[in-house]
């Protein structure tokens, strides 16, 4: 049993052993604080063989101190003050800097108070084997404990405490070093106070304590030349600032009042737009506004003035002479602010802030003005916010911002939550459960962002689950992209046909109580088949073709008649409108419509009678349209092929049945249609698409990733869908010129291509003609490098990124000459072919149905504003769904890479290496694209490189000579998945292997 004792605290010492005082809290309450302190004589000095202090701990400081320093031949211990640790942590951490060190409790606590991250680094050092650090609890030792005197600042008190401790050590050493009789008197080692504060040094010397500055101490060390490099510059002149007088200081300018903003925007003096942060550089953001060709660049924290991604902001544009080109450096928020402290950062102007500020301003001033003027963008600052677009964000708790990681701790802590998205700032939140939330994905909302606070403040909403668990990752993905994923409610399910799974097309004639057969063509005998990806459950299109007696060909596209089941303005319709689209994730699908419709009643399964909406053309053998008609119909598909099956069937010369012939017929038409489209100037764009192989349905562990294969039959289906969409678009636009639901793709502004054109010209000597889509298509075809087959694809991918995204619109809302679809080179386009998974198609179905007089048009579809409102939602959902899908693929690619890395290691290979192409160069890194995996990555260099912004090259030191890397170069990268230390986020990390190994720098 342990010994339990009562520690006596004599009443006579009350002055130094207890404190009672009142203090005012941040909220203005006055609270009483009681503190007592038990002083003791058994706090060990930590010097080996000390006669007075016995201790069981084995790692003690050597008896004679360190004899290696020239200034102190008799041996010495160093005793650094707080500022040394705050400013020179890199020096202290160096393995070459290893004198026996006494770390005072006063110093340790001050470091902890100032910066938790630094404190944690220091804490780790005290535990490490190769450092000789003894923590002396001077505040608990009766001889060295001091109390603050009247009119003494806390800093002065601590300095005095440090000096008192240093003096005590010297006398303590001389006492314990008294020579044993008969032996020669040995010189005592001294305790050397290391401080940057000249006044403190003076006072120390007055009381007989040896003290030096860090620089002077290091200069005379053995490895001075190496160690001097580690000294931080500020250290030499930065005198410890006092913290006591710190008030709340505004870090951001205030917003202008709303009426001023609205008036300013109306008058054209101010501009309004959505705020987009730069994902590579957290100190930069941009706002596209209609008044300028290029988006307005916002540089620096103050100019971005507390805007968060997606906010609708109002900006004031700076005069033209201040316009800048965007910086070409990767600035990582986490790396930059790793020593920032959640508790008090930004609230008090402490030197930590200044450190971040000076670093930031260094980065900002670095954004060069020597760039060509063509790259200049208008700059500005945010003067107000029209609408915040804050929502719940998926975050991780930043582990270094925690004061206590013990799960038993019940105290409230202020911590940082790092959002998963790089576009968002860190959020500060107060929570009692911080330790238990570590390693979890959590949902955090922003509550407010005051002008006095560097970071927005938020609160914890709920935990999503363990990091990297599939459930948590999937849910976080859906939340991050705002995908509504709740199960369908009862009101919605009540809108389904009551027969459920048993629903069938009623027989024609008198049993058709609901008049389903009215205005419907009976196409049950037509040889219809569907071609889809493998495993497809929601088959929404089917095709047929047959030769007509007159030599023309009849081709038909049959789309599931979803509008028959989804009636306007009922709960199911509203829900579908709100969801906008079905979201496809690697291992999951979030349906827009209840699955009874999507995968059964509206799925054009083979051998089952299904309702359809058909578009039937009469085409000449040269694929010229003779006539087109639209009709509701009943079909009975004869087969459901996968692309591969259809391809094999078509290519099999032995098959001559009707089905195969109709596929061949369709294919021949598709080839001609495509040729026509290309001739008209359609673009053949490329976007990286990969396919994830899952281990089995249950475990869904990805084993590998490969690129999607494209077959002739893919193109077959695509061409007919395009044809149907275009024909339908013409029809509904003609019938409803004001409210037709169409889709357009605006031609990209030429300036978007400037950079790509410049890169191509300088690196490969190709020119890109962007005058029209046809010209672009032609010049893209010429960008071929015989040695690099992937080069063309790469250029296409990059060109695609320069373009705008397509959008739905209502025909009455925009001028008719902007209806065009740039990518498809069609003057009009819509979406008709996938009503199960896209809401716009449902609207188009309704309009088409009204256009052919089958059903009357619902009143809402006559209202331009209503259609616009619905399409706004659909556009946004569509964008989000794409991003969610991509993020899901990315997550699985990450998992697959991890698995592959493990397999590689099991086989004894070191790591995963892949070919990659450089797509962007930065001052301190390159952006690469790994085509095989369809992922993009960033390789950053810590060491300085020569960056040539003109020619898009950087020069990095290689093994023998310097190596130049430019855009489009093929490199080999090592791909690892590493867990980010702070956020626990699985991060794909790439390092160059060829032409140079970048792991060294």
């Amino acid at each position, binding site marked *: 049993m342990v010994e339990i004792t*009562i520690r006596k605290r004599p009443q006579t010492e009350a002055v130094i052993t207890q404190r009672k005082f009142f203090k005012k809290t941040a909220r203005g309450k006055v609270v009483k604080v009681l503190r007592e302190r038990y002083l003791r004589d058994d706090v060990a000095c930590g010097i080996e063989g000390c006669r007075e202090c016995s201790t069981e701990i084995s790692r003690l400081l050597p008896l004679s101190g360190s004899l290696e320093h020239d200034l102190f031949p008799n041996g010495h211990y160093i005793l650094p003050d707080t500022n040394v640790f705050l400013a020179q942590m890199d020096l202290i951490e160096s393995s070459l800097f290893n004198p026996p060190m006494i770390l005072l409790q006063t110093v340790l606590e001050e470091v902890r108070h100032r910066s938790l991250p630094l404190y944690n680094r220091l804490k780790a050092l005290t535990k490490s084997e190769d450092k000789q650090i003894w923590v002396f609890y001077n505040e608990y030792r009766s001889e060295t404990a001091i109390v603050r005197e009247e009119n003494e600042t806390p800093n002065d008190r601590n300095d005095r405490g440090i000096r008192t401790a240093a003096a005590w050590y010297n006398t303590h050493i001389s006492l314990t070093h008294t020579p044993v009789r008969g032996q020669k008197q040995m010189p005592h080692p001294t305790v050397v106070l290391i401080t940057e504060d000249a006044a403190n040094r003076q006072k120390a010397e007055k009381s007989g304590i040896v003290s030096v500055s860090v620089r002077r101490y290091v200069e005379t060390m053995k490895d001075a030349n190496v160690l001097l490099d580690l000294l931080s510059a500020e250290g030499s002149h930065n005198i410890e600032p006092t913290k006591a007088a710190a008030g709340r200081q505004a870090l951001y300018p205030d917003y202008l009042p709303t009426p001023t903003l609205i008036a300013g925007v109306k008058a054209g003096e101010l501009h309004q737009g959505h705020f987009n942060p730069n994902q590579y550089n957290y100190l930069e953001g941009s706002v596209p506004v209609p008044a300028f060709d290029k988006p307005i660049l916002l540089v620096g924290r103050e100019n971005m003035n507390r805007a968060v991604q997606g906010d609708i902001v109002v900006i004031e544009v700076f005069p033209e002479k201040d316009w800048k080109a965007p910086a070409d450096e990767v600035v990582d928020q986490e790396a930059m602010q790793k020593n920032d402290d959640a508790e008090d950062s930004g609230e008090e102007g402490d030197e930590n802030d200044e450190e971040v500020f000076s670093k930031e301003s260094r980065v900002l001033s670095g954004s060069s003005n020597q760039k060509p003027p063509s790259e200049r963008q208008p700059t500005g600052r945010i003067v107000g916010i029209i609408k915040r677009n804050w929502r719940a964000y998926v975050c991780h708790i930043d582990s270094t911002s925690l004061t206590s990681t013990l799960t038993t701790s019940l105290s409230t802590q202020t911590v940082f939550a790092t959002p998963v998205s790089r576009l968002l700032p860190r959020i500060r939140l107060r929570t009692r459960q911080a330790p238990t939330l570590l390693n979890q994905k959590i949902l955090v909302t922003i509550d407010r962002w005051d002008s006095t606070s560097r970071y927005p403040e938020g609160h914890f909403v709920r935990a999503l689950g363990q990091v990297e668990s599939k459930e948590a990752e999937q849910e976080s993905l859906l939340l991050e992209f705002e995908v509504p994923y709740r199960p369908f409610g009862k009101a919605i399910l009540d809108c389904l046909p009551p027969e459920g799974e048993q629903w069938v097309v009623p027989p024609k004639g008198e049993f058709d109580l609901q008049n389903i057969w009215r205005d419907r063509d009976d196409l049950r005998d037509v040889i219809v088949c569907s071609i889809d990806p493998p495993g497809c459950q929601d088959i929404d299109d089917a095709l047929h073709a047959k030769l007509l007696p007159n030599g023309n060909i009849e081709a038909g596209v049959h789309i599931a008649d979803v509008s028959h089941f989804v009636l306007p303005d009922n709960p199911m319709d509203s829900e579908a409108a709100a969801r906008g689209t079905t979201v496809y994730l690697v291992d999951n699908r979030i349906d827009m419509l209840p699955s009874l419709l999507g995968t059964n009643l509206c799925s054009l399964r083979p051998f089952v009678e299904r309702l359809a909406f058909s578009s039937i053309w009469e085409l000449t053998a040269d694929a010229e349209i003779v006539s087109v008609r639209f009709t509701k119909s009943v079909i009975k598909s004869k087969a459901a092929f996968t692309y591969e099956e259809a391809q094999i069937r078509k290519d099999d010369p032995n098959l001559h049945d009707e089905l195969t012939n109709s596929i061949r017929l369709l294919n021949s038409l598709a080839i001609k249609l495509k040729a026509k489209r290309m001739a008209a100037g359609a673009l053949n764009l490329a976007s990286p698409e990969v396919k994830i192989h899952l281990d089995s349905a249950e475990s869904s562990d990805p084993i590998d990733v490969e690129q999607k294969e494209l077959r002739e039959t893919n193109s077959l289906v695509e061409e007919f869908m395009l044809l149907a969409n275009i024909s339908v678009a013409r029809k509904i636009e003609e019938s409803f010129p004001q409210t037709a639901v169409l889709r357009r793709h605006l031609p990209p502004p030429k300036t978007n291509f400037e950079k790509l054109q410049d890169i191509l010209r300088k690196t490969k000597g190709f020119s890109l003609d962007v005058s029209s889509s046809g010209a672009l298509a032609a010049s893209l075809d010429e960008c071929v490098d015989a040695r690099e087959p992937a080069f063309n694809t790469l250029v296409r991918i990059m060109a695609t990124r320069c373009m705008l995204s397509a959008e739905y619109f209502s025909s009455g809302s925009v001028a008719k000459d902007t209806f065009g679809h740039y990518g498809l080179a069609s003057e009009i386009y819509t979406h008709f072919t996938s009503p199960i998974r896209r809401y716009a198609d449902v609207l188009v179905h309704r309009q088409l149905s009204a256009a052919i007089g089958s059903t009357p048009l619902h009143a809402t579809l006559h209202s331009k504003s209503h259609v616009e409102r619905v399409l706004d939602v659909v556009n946004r959902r569509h964008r989000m769904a794409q991003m969610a899908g991509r993020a899901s693929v990315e997550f699985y690619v990450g998992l697959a890479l991890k698995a592959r890395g493990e397999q590689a290691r099991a086989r004894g290979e070191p790591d995963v290496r892949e070919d990659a192409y450089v797509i962007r160069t930065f001052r301190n890194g390159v952006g690469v694209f790994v085509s095989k995996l369809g992922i993009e990555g960033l390789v950053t260099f810590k060491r300085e490189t020569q960056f040539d912004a003109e020619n898009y090259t950087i020069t990095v030191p290689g093994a023998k000579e310097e190596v130049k890397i430019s855009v489009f170069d093929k490199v080999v990268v090592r791909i690892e998945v590493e867990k980010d230390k702070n956020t626990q986020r699985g991060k794909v990390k790439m390092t160059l292997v060829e032409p140079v190994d970048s792991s060294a720098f």
Partner: protein
Amino acid sequence: MSADRLLLTLSDSSDSSDGHSRIEILNTGGYRSDGRRQYELRTISIDLSPQGSGADGSASLTHGLTQVNVCVFGPREAKMRSQTYHDRANVNIEVAIAAFSASERRKRGRGDKRILELSQTLKSTFEPVIQTSLYPRSQIDIYIQVLQQDGGLLQACVNATTLALANAGIPTYDFVCAVTGGVHSTSPLLDLTLLEENDLPNVTVAVMPRSGKITLVSMETRLHVDRFEEIFRLAGEAGKVIHREMRKAVKDRTEQLVASMQSVGRPSTGADVGDNEY
């Protein structure tokens, strides 16, 4: 406290203005925030001299900076019929917490739930310990005044009440000695300060040292079941250490009284004979 004095202390304390969560409960050197080690109890001071007017026994006790006063009246004739038992005395405990005692100034009325709970806990602790059957149809009133709180309120109340009962000459079966134990990560701590109490799971245990019986276990936080036994045992042991201190105080007080009784005849000021302050 006058307004200027308050202002002075306000500016005076700016050094620790944002330090609460920055204090380590148990640092790597094995010291707690007040310089104690794990198994060290806070200083205890006991004053058994008569306080107030007419109390039959009283005690003033401090554990560190937690301070309580207890006055015991009785046994005396029960005033209310409803609270009169024919076979034993009724024990009535009232607790008053001074508004200035806690860190946040707050008046707690008689009906305050927290106070009622505290007095109820104390009542059920002491009822079986006091030999109530010796005094049928009478009542024993115990008034507890909390003057300052720095953790271990229940513990202080229990210990002070024991002493006051002894001082009043009310027969009990044994001393009741209470100590709070907590756990920081896996290290048990004894006699928690307010700072520690707010951060750690803790349990208060009252022990009757002679028999080793436990009369009170109070736990308002969640404590892992694997840790409970260890803390429970330790707190029980610590109770015995406190007991030595309490017994000594009672003995000293008695010796003082005996000494002054033997010197009867010499001029004296009456009740204040044994006051420690002199």
